[in-house]
């Protein structure tokens, strides 16, 4: 009885901890639809460098979101060596935001293209930006500089990036009273995509270790039964 009670208390504590460490909203939710009137102010260009070729290539005219599309090749490898250069340049001199809020921060993200998110609810896009699961990677997050109209970064493709076709999204965060909220966005949907491939995740050392360890159990059983059989035969 005492054990059951202590287990119940531990469970309640765990639930409380889980609730406390769940996502805490520190922003007012904004949707892409709400920001549509102020879309189209950024020129976003993508340039890639494959370390094998040591050459840059620009998948600029790639409106094809499938990873198999020729214009998405060659695929960038997720080995932290292949790089994607993203440049986001303002078309005009100033940035217009929704409700004329003051822009504070620019965030550039990599988002799954539609074919790469099909039948994968964990990559599902959502009109509410904070609930959108399709943009898991932050390429750059920087304070907005009023004197600068261009933001660029050479982003090494991280090792946990999966095989997919992507587009880039620029999101602008504004102060809204005591909270932050998104107040402008742009992306390269139907304009430019890039493709990535995973690292080699089965190196030779793993193959050898698997072969050796996997044979231990069957070999032990085989030797046990042979010894048992020989012992009974002698009797």
């Amino acid at each position, binding site marked *: 009885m005492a*054990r*059951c009670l202590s*287990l119940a208390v531990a*469970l309640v504590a*765990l*639930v409380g901890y*889980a*609730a406390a*460490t*769940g*996502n805490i909203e520190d922003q007012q939710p904004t949707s892409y639809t709400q920001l549509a009137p102020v879309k189209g102010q950024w020129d976003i260009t993508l340039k890639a460098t494959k370390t094998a070729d040591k050459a840059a290539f620009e998948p600029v005219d790639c409106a094809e979101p499938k990873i198999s599309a020729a214009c998405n090749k060659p695929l960038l490898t997720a080995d932290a060596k292949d790089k994607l250069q993203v440049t986001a340049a303002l078309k005009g001199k100033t940035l217009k935001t929704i409700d004329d809020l003051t822009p504070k921060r620019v965030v550039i993200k990599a988002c799954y293209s539609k074919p790469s998110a*099909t*039948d*994968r*609810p*964990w990559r599902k896009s959502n009109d509410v930006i904070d609930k959108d*699961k399709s943009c898991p990677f932050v390429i750059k997050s920087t304070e907005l500089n009023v004197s600068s109209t261009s933001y660029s970064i050479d982003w090494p493709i991280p*090792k*946990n990036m*999966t*095989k*997919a076709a992507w587009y880039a999204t620029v999101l602008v965060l504004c102060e809204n009273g005591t909270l932050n909220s998104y107040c402008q966005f742009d992306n390269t949907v139907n304009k430019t995509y890039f493709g990535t491939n*995973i*690292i080699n*995740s*089965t*190196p030779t050392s*793993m*193959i050898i*270790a*698997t072969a050796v*360890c*996997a*044979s*231990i*159990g*069957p070999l*032990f*059983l085989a030797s*046990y039964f042979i010894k*048992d059989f020989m*012992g*009974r035969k002698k*009797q």
Partner: protein
Amino acid sequence: MGVMGKDAVQDDFPSFALPVDTEHKATIMRPWYFARPHMPAFHLSWLAFFAAFVSTFAPAALLPVIRDNIDLTKTDLGNAGIAAVCGAIAARVAMGNFVDTYGPRFGIGLCIGLTAPAVYCIALCTNAAGFIISRLFIGFSLATFVACQFWCTSMFNTKVVGTANALAAGWGNMGGGFTHFLMPLVFDGIKASSSPAFLAWRWAFFVPASFQVLLTVCIMAFTQDMPDGNYAALKKSSAMRKSSAWGTWKAAITNYRTWVMTLTYGYCFGVELTVDNVLPQYMYDNFHLDLHIAGLLAAIFGMMNLFSRPSGGYISDLVARKWGMRGRLWAMWIIQSLGGLFCLLLGLTSGSLGATMAILVIFSIFCQQSCGLSFGIVPFISKRSTGLVSGFVGSGGNVGGAVTQALFFTYLPISTAQGFLWMGVMTMGITLLYLTMYFPMWGGCFAAAKEGVSEEDYYLAEWTPEERAEGLHSASIKFAYESRSQRGWVKQAALNESKEAAAAGAINDSVKSINV
């Protein structure tokens, strides 16, 4: 004392460390004891089953990483989950036949020893097909359940067999929860040594695989099949006779109770398997938790097996003391129906993490208690084909898991929360089948026992007159005698009263005849 060499058999008056009955089965169940031969068999059998569960559900614990590494879709994940439980369907039936013939020690040793390579090899899969095939072969290890239950039934008396079976199965099932706690930790530990995530999850599988190999060695070295020795030695000394395989099969498949339990177990254990498969992802995706927290919360469901499944077996034995088998059947129906109800409620709380966790805890208690209660009944369905009946019922659990996973979480276009809701509805419907179970010597839910039918009549009916003439039914005679405890003391007291009344009547008649 009671510890036998490989080829030795107990003499006519053996001594055991624990109190035993006429079949040399232990009459007490104390998990903190380690007296040979009963307790090592108990502990290693539940540990083997625990290891099988850890390995089978280890991929589910790391799915958020695996699905991105090998580019899996929702359909692929669903198929892999189905493959994991389907692998064991035929394996459990085969295991039931195997243990009846070769004994549970070989059954468990071979099962976990030969599936360990599949657990190692999942580290090498690079696409959906490889992942699904790996989970299929790893799923074969769930056949250890049948050998585990058979071994406990062989080692423990009818009065405590429910508790023993439920403790072993419950602690074994805990592996399904423990893995959601363990694997993210192992994964993180490996990642911390500068290994990328897509390599770390692969190396993590070496842990459950190696545990399986270690247990294989321990089981072959430290245990024996029966209290009196191993199957090979017992058969050699004619202490155990080999009977017709077809007769064993016939006794299992022509008994309708086998099929009722097979179907209904699919909606307690099968539901548990499905929830083990889908819960971590549901927590991760629905409540936006990180991998650790999602795994920790999902682990609670499986870890409740620590006491909930054993409590089911204990409840079964407790109600049987007063009401016999009828008490077991009623308890079974009530608790499994409550499990279905709380599964339905789980589907209605997807908006709140706190409510979900509260309902999940209660759901897990009833779901797992009903699994424990099931194997308080299964040992009594047949004595001749105990292993085979356990195999069919056990595989029914996996069929139920495959069906519920396919219907509610893969192919129907409904959300996971709705899947829980409809799974609960289906559970409550199928559970009504318990009301049809009837034992002529003990009764059923609504009908009393038939007058004049004894346990011997029921269990000896499984043997032909020729087999009885050869003495092959001797174990069934002993079992029938020991299973009289399933009459419950209410009926037994009534029987004793009528016997005393009959005896008193006979004395009076003889006195009258003398006086005359």
